[in-house]
């Protein structure tokens, strides 16, 4: 192995160690199933390995990984829509898994239900900010839009989340939050346990 190859490997290892938890977590709430999440994360780092020389340094590399993960998962979704019958059935399975398991934490259950009621674009930008801790400028890079656009979308997503959450709180009777059947299979929202 040449010195350059050793250096590449060192850089990749550092990247993997620093950011694989972030990317695994991100894929966990974006992908359709736990195995899809694992595959997506693997694909992200394979891409990173192949394009290591093009990767920016520092925190920009993290943003690059998020953007790549987003594209990989979008590809997965496109694929699953266009597969033949077996794959359609598996997509059905994914939708089944996508139901959020009952949470022992009441507040957490309400949060998940409120997230489910958001549109996918709102949910995505909100979670990139609140769970992935990205700034609006970084979110803009991930989504491929202007920072100003990201800021506006984030503001609106926060407002809608608050409305949904408060509505649920107001109707909360201490049991599991009510969920409309149609939403469970169409929102695509889930938080997958780590594989």
């Amino acid at each position, binding site marked *: 192995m040449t010195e350059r190859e050793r250096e590449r490997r060192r850089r990749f290892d550092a990247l993997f160690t620093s950011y694989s938890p972030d990317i695994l*977590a991100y894929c966990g709430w974006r992908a359709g199933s736990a195995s899809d999440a694992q*595959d997506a994360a693997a694909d992200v780092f394979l891409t990173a390995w*192949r394009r290591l020389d093009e990767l920016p340094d520092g925190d920009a590399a993290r943003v690059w990984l998020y953007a790549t993960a987003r594209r990989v998962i979008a590809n997965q979704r496109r694929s699953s829509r266009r597969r033949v019958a077996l794959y359609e059935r*598996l997509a059905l*399975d994914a939708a089944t898994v996508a139901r959020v398991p009952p949470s022992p934490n009441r507040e957490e259950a309400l*949060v998940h239900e409120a997230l489910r009621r958001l549109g996918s674009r709102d949910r995505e930008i909100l979670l990139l900010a609140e769970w992935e801790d990205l700034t609006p400028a970084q979110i803009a890079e991930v989504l491929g839009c202007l920072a100003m656009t990201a800021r506006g979308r984030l503001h609106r997503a926060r407002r809608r989340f608050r409305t949904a959450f*408060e509505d649920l709180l107001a109707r909360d009777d201490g049991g599991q939050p009510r969920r409309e059947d149609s939403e469970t299979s169409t929102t695509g929202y889930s938080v997958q346990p780590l*594989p």
Partner: protein
Amino acid sequence: MKASESLQALRRANPRATAGYARSVDAAADALRAQLVTTSADVAVEVGAPGPRTRHPAPRRRLARAAAVASLAAVAATAAVLTLGSPGVGPGVANAAAAVRQAATVTAASAERSGTAVVRITHDGRAWAGTTIRWHGSDLAVSRDAPQRQAKAGSRMLLVDGTLYGIDPVDGGWVVLGNPQNIDPDSGTTPDEYLAAVREDVGGETLHRIVDGMTGLTTRQLGDGSTVYSGTVPAGLIARESGFKEGQPIRVLPFGYVAHDEAADPAAPLHAAVTVSAGGIVSEITITWGTGASAWRYTVAYSRLGATTAPAAPPDARPLRER
């Protein structure tokens, strides 16, 4: 309620805040690291997993050609054995080169009809991946031997009389997938492309390419009458470029495994050992590269060439939409 209160609740619901998350993420990262090393085209065949896309413009035409020449080749191979004798007999490097090529010809001819290939990959001495392929004419049976792949989608495939059967990942039973040409996972290798590549590998073309490229040949006799021919082969003759992904070329070892490290560099010399049985048939190919913790060993063991029975369609296979 203030906006900040709803956002605080949202932040508290972040899965990363849950107990045991750090431990889970460590385990997931380990699994991910392993997956990165073993990512292979068989994964690509599995639902949704992107992978290398191979291009085989006319697999059916090639199959027809292969079937047509199979019987002629078998006759020619038998004649070659009778005329030239066992390939391990001749002394000297020139004879060794001729002998191993002769063995490849004989093996390829036998392999055209039927056979069994067991593929094993180890990394740093540990098993990483494995597949067993049985073929008979146009029919194929492929099973992944790694324990973690049992009963998963893509863990077993059967192609019998032009119909592809797969494993239902829900209950592990067989399902009828239909004509493999109709299955397009969109990103990654289609089952049809994968099967076409396997046919090329079992059909002798791959074996010829490896043997023809071997240099620095040495021979070693084994107690059972087999001869091991060792030498170096440029990685490019073993791992073929099989399309592009993310703008980068992908190289795939025979039977569909993505090449890593030196094996992905077409100019890198890899150590190759071809074992020829006393009967003049190639029984095993071993390719090794890397050292220490980066040591890889890729082995293909051939058996029952020309004598492997045809796989049967699973009698309990269910139609895809039944459920």
